[in-house]
């Protein structure tokens, strides 16, 4: 095909719509909401791409996926070639295609997006990855064994990517994961209806095929420290990708009432422990009639949509800024609205009331207005004095953020830490202040994104490899 060279091609202004499960139907089930493009739609969408010489879209992608190249291959129906192209840069395309905040990344910079809608890069990436999963992923090649042993702590996107890359370079990799399944937030946080767990598990199966050993139920800092892994267990290097799992609470009166959950608890019970299948699965969850979710990020959207699926009559997002500042992915905000999630903007709670049994029966809130811009560049929410009112709710989910879990930082000797308890690591190499120990993902940056965590895992794998090769050269 020579289409890219045809100067005047007809521009299709809009993305091909993503087929979705009907909103009324899906708000009652946990099946995936976005159904994915079929081949014809994917090819047609790929043909919208202008194949820009300067490739602005690539600069928007944190790992610089070869976007025009893979899209061209899709347009040419060479799906195998396309997925191979993507994987040169992105180890988890089935995940990123689904959960990347594309509107702030690749698609934000797409030339088409200036006048029309950008190319649906994320959807195409997902299409290619799903196509490959359906075909059965071919085993990847690994370099001859180097004899080095590397421990990866945590099996979120950062750890998984780092492990895959190191295994391909011929190192013996063992992942230690605290929970009973691997995958990190991809398994316990992001709900099934947005990221089916079979997609994550397929990625993990690939990893095992590369020879990576995954030890679940292994909390580093408890059964062994990072120092012990290196000194007693013979690991030549360690990558720490333990994420940002520590929930932040509001510290308002009544927050320990029954019916107040951290988003982590709410989502872990539902996703990891499958409370939505209770009592066939043993772990319970309880949502009342009216649920308030505090926060405005992806985590909050996931919790609010999960609440509806668990049978809540009303599910509210309570956010102290306005709609424009919502940090969640645009697509998920739209999906949430369609499903019936309600929004109380410029609102924040001051206390939670409980009944005689200790159960939530209401929440006092203040209204806010937007003032001067703050450090983040967003206008600061300022409470309006005397604007107190009570929201009639019986369940509250706190989704205002997470910080790194202190377990590994606290038990590792000589690890420099940042102000928020994060591990300090060189963004160029992933190296920490401790020789042989590397870190990346949310434990370094604080809660961020899948693609950034993945990118950090990849960078660290490269430096760990260099470190080990150096070590070999010196010995």
């Amino acid at each position, binding site marked *: 095909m020579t289409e890219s060279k045809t100067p005047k091609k007809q521009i299709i202004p809009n993305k091909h719509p993503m087929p979705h499960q009907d909103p009324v139907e899906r708000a009652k089930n946990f099946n995936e909401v976005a159904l994915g493009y079929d081949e014809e739609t994917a090819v047609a969408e790929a043909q919208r791409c202008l194949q820009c010489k300067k490739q602005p879209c690539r600069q928007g992608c944190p790992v610089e996926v070869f976007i025009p190249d893979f899209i061209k291959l899709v347009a040419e129906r060479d799906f195998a070639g396309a997925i191979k192209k993507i994987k040169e840069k992105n180890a988890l395309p089935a995940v990123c295609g689904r959960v990347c905040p594309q509107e702030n990344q690749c698609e934000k910079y797409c030339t088409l997006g200036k006048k029309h809608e950008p190319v649906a890069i994320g959807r195409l990436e997902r299409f290619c990855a799903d196509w490959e999963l359906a075909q059965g992923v071919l085993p990847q090649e690994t370099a001859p064994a180097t004899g080095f042993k590397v421990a990866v702590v945590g099996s979120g996107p950062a750890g998984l990517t780092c492990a895959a890359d190191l295994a391909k370079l011929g190192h013996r990799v063992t992942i230690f994961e605290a929970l009973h399944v691997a995958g990190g937030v991809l398994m316990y946080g992001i709900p099934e209806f947005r990221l089916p767990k079979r997609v994550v598990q397929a990625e993990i199966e690939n990893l095992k095929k590369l020879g990576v050993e995954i030890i679940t139920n292994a909390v580093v800092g408890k059964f062994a420290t990072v120092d012990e892994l290196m000194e007693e267990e013979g690991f030549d290097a360690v990558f720490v990708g333990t994420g940002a799992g520590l929930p932040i609470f509001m510290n308002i009166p009544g927050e320990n009432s029954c019916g107040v959950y951290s988003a982590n608890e709410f989502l872990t019970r539902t996703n990891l422990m499958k409370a939505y299948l*209770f009592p066939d699965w043993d772990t319970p969850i309880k949502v009342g009639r009216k649920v308030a979710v505090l926060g405005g990020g992806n985590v909050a959207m996931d919790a609010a949509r999960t609440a509806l699926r668990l049978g809540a009559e009303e599910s509210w997002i309570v956010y102290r800024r306005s709609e424009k500042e919502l940090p969640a992915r645009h697509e998920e905000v739209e999906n949430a609205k369609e499903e019936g999630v309600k929004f109380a903007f410029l609102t924040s709670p001051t206390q939670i009331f409980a009944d005689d049994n200790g159960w939530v029966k209401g929440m006092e809130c203040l209204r806010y207005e937007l003032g001067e811009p703050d450090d983040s560049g967003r206008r600061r929410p300022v409470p309006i004095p005397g604007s107190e009112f009570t929201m009639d709710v019986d369940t509250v989910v706190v989704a205002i953020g997470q910080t790194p879990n202190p377990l590994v930082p606290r038990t590792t000797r000589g690890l420099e830490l940042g102000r928020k308890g994060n591990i300090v690591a060189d963004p160029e190499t992933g190296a920490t202040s401790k020789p042989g120990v590397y870190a990346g993902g949310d434990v370094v940056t604080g809660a961020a994104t899948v693609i950034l965590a993945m990118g950090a895992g990849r960078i660290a794998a490269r430096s760990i490899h260099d470190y080990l090769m150096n070590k070999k050269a010196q010995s």
Partner: protein
Amino acid sequence: MFRILDKQVLSPVIKQMVIEAPLVARKCQAGQFIILRIHEEGERIPLTIADFDREKGTITLVFQEVGKTTIQLGSLEAGDSIRDFVGPLGTPSHIEKFGTVICVGGGVGVAPVFPIARALKEAGNHVIGIMGSRTRELMFWEDKMREVCHELFVTTDDGSYVRKGFVTDVLKEVIEERGKDNIAMVLAIGPQPMMRACCNLTREYGIKTVVSLNSLMVDGTGMCGCCRVTVGGRTRFVCVDGPEFDGHEVDFAELARRSATFRVEEQRAMEHHQCRCGQGCGGGR
């Protein structure tokens, strides 16, 4: 999978199991716990490490059958396996030479008291043990406790064994007899009302009292906040900041309310389980 090497029935509702878990046994210390999940659909439940053998790589658990998971666990036999087993979790007990310490175990709480009493004895303390249960049938580990305590007092609520009285009655007598200034610390582990009663008593005497809390939990690593409890006016996580806390500072009323969060669901889980296995025998799948 984690193999059950041995099972003992200590009383009709209290069972003891030795589990093969070398990674946990290697590092665990008195006061720590594990979380297990019996099978794929199972709940994660916390149980205290009642004893361990580093050489053999085993952990001993003692548990009371109170609901779906513990009943199902109790139906397993030596040779069966448990799907998930993670630990050691929680902060180990603070062990040093305090002087004379009283270790109080109520009901199944005797099991978690045992390794702590042993560690306290090894650290050179004079250890006075008090163990109590509702009735004689529920009493276990008297011999083991005797080994790790310099003195041991035994009581039953109904007087069916040794004497009649609550552990708090015995505790009061011992404190009165020895004098409050001669007791450096009290450790109390058992049902929440018992720990609360011990704390109310020792508060009057001004004796430092440590309790081990059994809140609801999910992950056990500080990730979910399900286990939060107010101690000294601050929210703490039992799984990482505890499970041991200064009993005089614990908000027991809040802990009791939070523990009851899923009472209705727990009942449903039991009924669902029983109708599935036929007779409420607690049989596994």
